[in-house]
């Protein structure tokens, strides 16, 4: 038994060449804008929009990076983003794994109804709720605070994470849990010592998506944050966009700082991305 594709699926040499040419054109179209952005982040302001455009910065300068980093609040934006994304991810994973454990391992009145209510969160786009959420945040005194970001980011991530984790938890053999129960382990021990460790791949997927979503989030942060020292990276980057003439080098130096970590994480953990995606609930 050969593992090769059947002959009709095995393209001819020309077919293969055509395929690679098409793929390469596509891949270049995907990556070139980023490379051009990287290039511009090393250009002085007078070279960012020249005709013909500079493919390679000449003269190259790192002043955009130093300016961005030394500007009033940029390190603060970075720190805020890290704090918000980390806290959101930890709290969301804790709460959603607890819910997933209840849904996957217990029978109780109202289980179906509650799960359905939770699924509503997958269907309603975040922007539809932004007005009443703003009013609510004002009432709860959560405006203009990082807590206000975290609390609403956690709430927004619960549906997807619970949905994702429940599927994994159900796959853990009931016999294992029963054996632990016979040994006298309570439900908290079983959840913490058995279910969570076994679901590590699903937790990784949920971690990546939750972290990324809160790292990139813009509309809610734009709506509730006013104080510069409380802004996150997306807000900070958008602020570099000037009213009349944008300092493109600066914008892109800041952008590289923001997306660099994301792309590194993505390249390192891309398998988990694919898994999360095929659950089919990621809103573009």
């Amino acid at each position, binding site marked *: 038994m050969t593992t090769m594709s059947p002959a009709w699926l095995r393209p001819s040499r020309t077919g293969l060449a055509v395929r690679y040419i098409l793929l390469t054109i596509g891949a270049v179209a995907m990556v070139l804008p980023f490379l051009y952005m990287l290039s511009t982040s090393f250009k002085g302001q007078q070279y960012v929009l020249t005709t013909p455009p500079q493919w390679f910065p000449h003269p190259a300068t790192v002043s955009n990076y130093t300016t961005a980093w030394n500007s009033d609040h940029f390190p603060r934006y970075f720190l805020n983003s890290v704090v918000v994304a980390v806290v959101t991810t930890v709290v969301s994973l804790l709460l959603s794994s607890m819910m997933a454990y*209840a849904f996957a391992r*217990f029978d109780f009145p109202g289980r179906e109804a509650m799960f359905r209510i939770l699924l509503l969160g997958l269907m309603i786009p975040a922007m539809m709720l932004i007005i009443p959420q703003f009013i609510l945040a004002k009432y709860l005194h959560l405006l203009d605070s990082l807590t206000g970001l975290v609390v609403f980011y956690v709430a927004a991530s619960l549906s997807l994470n619970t949905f994702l984790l429940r599927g994994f938890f159900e796959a853990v053999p009931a016999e294992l849990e029963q054996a632990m129960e016979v040994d006298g382990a309570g*439900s908290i021990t079983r959840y913490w010592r058995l279910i969570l460790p076994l679901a590590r791949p699903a937790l990784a997927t949920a971690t990546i998506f939750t972290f990324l979503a809160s790292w990139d989030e813009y509309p809610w942060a734009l709506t509730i944050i006013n104080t510069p020292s409380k802004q996150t990276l997306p807000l900070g980057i958008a602020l570099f966009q000037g009213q009349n003439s944008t300092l493109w080098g600066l914008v892109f130096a800041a952008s590289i700082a923001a997306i660099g970590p*994301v792309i590194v994480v993505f390249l390192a953990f891309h398998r988990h*991305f694919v898994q999360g995606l095929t659950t089919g609930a990621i809103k*573009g």
Partner: protein
Amino acid sequence: MTVSAAVRSRKAAIAAGKEARPGSGRASRRRSGGRRVPRRSAIPYAFLAPGFILFVALIIYPMIRAFQMSFYDWRIVAGATSDFIGWQNYVTAFHDRIFWRSLANSGAYMLFTVPPQIALGLFVASLLRAKAPGQGLYRLLFYIPVVTSWVVVSLLFQYLFADAGLVNYVLHGVHATNGHTSWLSGRWTAMVAISALGVWKGIGWSMMIFLAALQGVPRDLEEAAAVDGAGRWRRFRTVTVPAIWPALTFVTVMLVIGGFNVFTSVLLMTGGGPADQTQVLLTFMYEQAFKFLQFGYGSAIAALLTVLVFVLSVIQLRIFRNRETS
């Protein structure tokens, strides 16, 4: 079900590996014969309570509130009373030229972005389907725009479509235009630029979904069709498309919803301008609410969009189901 049978079905399910993929959750539960802890106790509620209460308070309650607010002349100012005005906000929307323009622009964005994302996503997925060297790398490259923040790519495309930007330079270079298109200052050229961003950022997503779906296409069927002398296109239409029909349905519905939810790219690339020419429903809603403090009117626009998207989804699901059975 005997214990050994239960164990076996569990093992089979775990061996299949795909068990854990949500969506199959319900099926797996049935297969496992309901071996949950059946006791009636407060324990599950204790596990649910923190997350569920937070969810209901911050997602479900605002959801209900959104519809309610749309019937009020909502005052955010302390001490002011909000009056119930019935359908007045909706009437205002129907008489508002900019509302209709926003709706048309959102619709145009949807039409400009959904078909290319499906066609190109499916095309790239079929190119990447067979195992070949470098396949994984291409997959990653196509997916990078998907994981990049909307803020960054919106600013990037604003830069690329600037008057002296790269797009004009390249188009002039290949003699497609005179190179002086002022992309972001006209309604339709701006919609083209914004849509280009949407397609560029979205191809990787539909590609991934289609790639997963293509793994499930029965090879022997395709082979049989090939033996019968069916050409590439015919094989694609008669074997591949029916096999990936659920994925096609899912991608289309999600992309249409996503299309009507375009916001950040418009806000950052044109701000809805010049003179509200490129306003889409959500930027218009946002401006009414947070610039003019018309929270009731903004809520009405959001409610109209919710209903529209819901109706469109139901229609699409129905069309897809009919095509499947016929």
